[in-house]
């Protein structure tokens, strides 16, 4: 053999050796298709420390860590789960939960008691807690275990959203104090014990998290699939490929690819309720008196301009093209028919006030003093994994606005930058489409429209006053009154450009999945995997 090849043969040998030496033990044994259900997700923050993980990524806890209250898959109502009964005190500062008896923890860590609730809450008090409702949980002054099966939460301020927080839509996962005492955080990281009908089976970093069914669930829940696996697959076309090749049975697919999956015989499972809304937010809407961040030069501080910006958008076409027709119209950002303060009048009046009418839009702009080409604006776009429509909507907006004489420039930033801008009120230059996941409308106002809230999307005195009244109101009629006042106000004032509500849609292989009902409002969007049933024989 020619000497010059020695380096190459050596290289080849080294490469092959490296390969063989580092070949891992193959992943958890591939059971037959019907035994192990594989869900290809867009990815989530991998950690067992639920108090550091935000709501959508609680997908990874849904099968094995339960919450005090359940979200009914069909009606969306909060129903008993680990708590049988719950009620607030008269001033809504204290919430009492009567706990269920006879709930065993996984891995033999004893029975569920009030102490576990106290312990689980204490996780939210840790300094690294960054869960979605961590701020809310830290408003709790004291959690007292009155007895083994009764626990009371005392808040600093009255709160009306405790049921939301304690439900499957919130993030207070109940974990075992006994495990914590015995194994510490290391044991918890390795193998957290919960009370769900699946229990934690293991993780492969960067690849998947797996669960296995238990036989003695306290409610008698028996999932149809013995094993469950969530795969992290960042690339959308890879998820589609996995679904079609049979490696995954359910996949989270963007709308474009759903069409293709359907063509090949797959089926869509939609959540019972819409879970996300998309709205185009307007920067600079700081109408609190004396707010230095308010700049009158921002064109859309003029209501006529805002209305024009709404009427220039062809929502029907946008929905059919970018979103494949899947969505329902939003009349007021954040409001669903079941939300407090919903006004059926909006639907009737929407077309006249917000509907597609480029001629009227041009007229309004002229009235506001902007001839064709005189109004310039920046549209900020960003993508998040699983939400790639932002830039598309931005580009479509650019096209619609060009038609009515508005000049636009699209700037693609990353999400964090945009967020920093609206947090610090420096986003007066721009408008931006954003997809936000459902939260109760009271929370929505607090987060986005309350001047003392974090995000400052559209704020003024009226909203502040009314919100405070709403948050302190106890009687349902009073609450409805305040809620509707705010919502109507937002509707009349064209606070932003509301677009659509979307349900959570996943695609499944009908040969493996026959039925599945889930609300979508659960933290994690795709939830209630124990309800996935194989096709009827």
């Amino acid at each position, binding site marked *: 053999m*020619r*000497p*010059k*090849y*020695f*380096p*190459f043969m050596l*290289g*080849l040998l*080294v*490469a*092959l050796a*490296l*390969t063989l030496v*580092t*070949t*891992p033990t*193959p*992943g958890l044994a591939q059971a037959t298709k019907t035994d192990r259900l594989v869900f290809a997700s867009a*990815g989530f*923050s*991998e*950690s*067992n*420390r639920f108090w*550091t*993980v935000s709501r959508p990524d609680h997908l990874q806890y849904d099968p094995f860590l339960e919450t005090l209250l359940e979200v009914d898959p069909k009606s969306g109502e909060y129903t008993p789960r680990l708590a049988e009964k719950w009620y607030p005190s008269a001033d809504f500062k204290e919430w009492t939960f009567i706990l269920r008896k006879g709930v065993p923890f996984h891995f033999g860590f004893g029975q569920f008691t009030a102490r576990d609730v106290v312990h689980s809450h204490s996780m939210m008090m840790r*300094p*690294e807690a*960054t869960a*979605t*409702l*961590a*701020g809310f949980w830290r408003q709790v002054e004291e959690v007292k275990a009155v007895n083994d099966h009764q626990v009371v939460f005392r808040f600093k301020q009255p709160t009306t959203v405790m049921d939301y927080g304690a439900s499957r839509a919130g993030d207070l996962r109940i974990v075992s104090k006994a495990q914590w005492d015995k194994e510490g955080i290391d044991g918890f*990281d390795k193998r957290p014990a919960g009370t769900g009908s699946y229990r934690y089976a293991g993780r*492969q*970093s*960067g*690849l*998947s998290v797996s669960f296995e069914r238990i036989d003695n669930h306290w409610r008698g829940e028996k999932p149809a699939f013995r094993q469950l696996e969530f*795969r992290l697959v*960042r*690339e959308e*076309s*890879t998820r589609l*490929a*996995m679904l*079609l*090749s049979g*490696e995954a049975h359910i996949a989270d697919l963007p709308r474009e690819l759903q069409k293709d999956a359907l063509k090949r015989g797959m089926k869509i499972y939609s959540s019972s309720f819409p879970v996300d809304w998309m709205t185009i937010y307007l920067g600079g809407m700081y109408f609190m008196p004396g707010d230095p961040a308010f700049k009158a030069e921002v064109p859309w501080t003029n209501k006529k301009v805002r209305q024009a910006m709404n009427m220039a958008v062809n929502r029907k076409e946008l929905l059919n093209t970018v979103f494949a027709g899947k969505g329902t119209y939003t009349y007021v950002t954040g409001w669903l028919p079941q939300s407090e303060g919903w006004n059926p009048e909006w639907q009737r009046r929407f077309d006249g006030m917000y509907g597609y009418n480029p001629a009227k839009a041009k007229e309004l702009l002229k009235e506001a003093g902007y001839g064709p080409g005189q109004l310039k604006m920046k549209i900020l776009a960003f993508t998040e994994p699983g939400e790639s429509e932002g830039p598309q909507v931005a580009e479509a907006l650019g096209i619609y606005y060009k038609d009515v004489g508005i000049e636009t420039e699209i700037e693609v930033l*990353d999400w*964090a*930058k945009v*967020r*920093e801008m609206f*947090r610090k009120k420096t986003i007066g230059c721009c408008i931006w489409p954003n997809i*936000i996941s459902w939260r109760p409308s009271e*929370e929505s106002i607090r*987060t986005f429209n309350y001047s003392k809230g*974090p995000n400052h999307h559209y704020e003024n005195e009226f909203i502040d006053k009314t919100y405070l009244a709403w948050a302190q109101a106890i009687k349902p009629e009073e609450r409805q009154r305040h809620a509707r006042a705010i919502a109507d106000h937002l509707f009349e004032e064209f606070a932003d450009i509301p677009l659509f509500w979307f349900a959570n849609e996943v695609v499944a292989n009908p040969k493996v999945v026959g039925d599945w009902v889930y609300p979508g409002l659960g933290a994690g969007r795709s939830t209630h995997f124990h309800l996935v049933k194989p096709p009827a024989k």
Partner: protein
Amino acid sequence: MQRYIARRALQSLLAIWVVTLVVFSLARISGNPLDVMLPLEAGPEEYERVSKYWGLDQPLHTQYFIFLSKAVRGDFGNSWKWHGESAMGLVGQRLPATLQLAGFALAISLVIALPIGVLAAVMKGTGWDTAAKIIALLGQSLPPFWLGIVLMWIFAVHLGWFPTSGRGGIQHMILPAITLGWFQVAVVMRLLRSSMLDVLDSEFVKLTRIKGLAEWKVVWKHCLRNASIAPLTVFAIIAGGLMTGAVVTESVFSWPGTGQLVVDAVRARDFQVVQAVVIVFAGIFIFTNLVVDILYAYLDPRIRYQ
């Protein structure tokens, strides 16, 4: 020789230090990780609290000093996104996957390049030579992510020969390795071809054979020494190319390696992990270069005295 090694080693350390400085600054410029870490509900108190917890409220130079003093001990801090894992621990978890993929890709590129290179050299100047050249260059002309997706669709979905993604056994590695290694085929092929041509032409070798000198002596003492220099450099370059090419390939095939890790970390502004990955990669590269340079100096004395 000792002095040369000492000098080069010192320079390498300096290089690594500069890398830490640059990565640290770049990562910090990229913005506030809290905007990614914290939910929309988080108000100023939450920002303050978490900022303090992660030491982000300190002035930059303090943060750098703390970072450096821990880094020299191999502690790159805890990940901000993968709660509970240390940054170095994560790199340690994922690096074998990337090395494995890179190794396999290298093997595949050698396997493809060997026959093409030999053919091109033996049939020099003919249509075969040009055809071989074009095939090799084709590899360098295709965007790797595009190639990956196309391969996945043809072989994993339509033909069903291989799984589409993930890591498990040899069959999971083939498509990603081809995607990753294809790019290097041209480089390796070119090298093989020129080496082969030199060998075929070598007067020296012919002469020594005529003289009857023991072939192995000739080969070992003379040819191999001279021959090893070029492939060594190329090796280092290829290794570097494979490591960075892995980023894209791992994304497409969901291969749980450091490439996938760093893309996720950058998106999540998890500086700790980004720093760890970049410094480890740079460290490997600088170290490889150091070794190559030392081998050079050993094989070619002239270099030592520059």
